[in-house]
């Protein structure tokens, strides 16, 4: 389980557009570096990030090796109703992680 930091307001007014920032610990090994033994280090990156609200996909990102290690993704969401946000990261070497957060909309 990689460490994750999600920054978002716990509460929002209906219609308010909130910023969500997701930071995850991951080396995002590009596949272009060579190790000390001269051999190419295998690519190991997060390839896809998705955010679902109430089961519906609201935002997604396709990442390539040019995204920095410990990737930060910031995006916005219009708060429509209270519900659960599900964040998922998938990548090389079977990497898969899901986090959930509750958003209360008043």
């Amino acid at each position, binding site marked *: 389980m990689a460490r994750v930091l999600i920054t978002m307001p716990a509460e929002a007014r209906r219609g308010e557009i909130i910023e969500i920032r997701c930071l995850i610990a991951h080396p995002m090994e*590009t596949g272009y570096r060579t190790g000390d033994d001269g051999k190419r280090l295998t690519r190991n990156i997060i390839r896809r990030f998705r955010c679902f609200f109430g089961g*519906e996909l609201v935002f997604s990102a*396709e990442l390539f090796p*040019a995204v920095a290690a410990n*990737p*930060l993704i910031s*995006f916005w969401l219009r708060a429509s109703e209270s519900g659960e946000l599900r964040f998922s990261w998938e990548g090389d070497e079977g990497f898969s992680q899901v986090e959930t957060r509750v958003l209360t909309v008043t």
Partner: protein
Amino acid sequence: MKRRAVLGWLALSGQLASASTEELRAAILLYTGGVEPKPGGVQIDIAPLVENGNAVPVTLRVDDSPMRPDDHVQGIALFNQLNPQRDVARFSLTPASGKAQVATRIRLATSQQLVAVAKLSDGSYRSQAVDVVVTLAACVE
């Protein structure tokens, strides 16, 4: 002040095409399905001078989209000129996004041009190019 160099497609195709610029154009057209993006309408916020290319903050945005079901930004993609490969990231948005703005941190191997392309719900594409100078670290571990 963030420097934004507007590079029209006319100017780009008019230049002597280096291999990387050709690849950049090809990567962009792959994203747009062959449609020529119109310059302007999408912004890249990035420092014009970067002291370390390992983690460069960048914000991509389309400021004037109402993000309504009938009129919204469906995607924003970022391409580069001189990294080992042209793609950096592709973001997909929905009307629920509310605001067409994404931010991340990217790797830049050297001073180069970046191009952002926005895909709009009416099938059109907008683009913006920016030049970034990257100074490289002296002491590499």
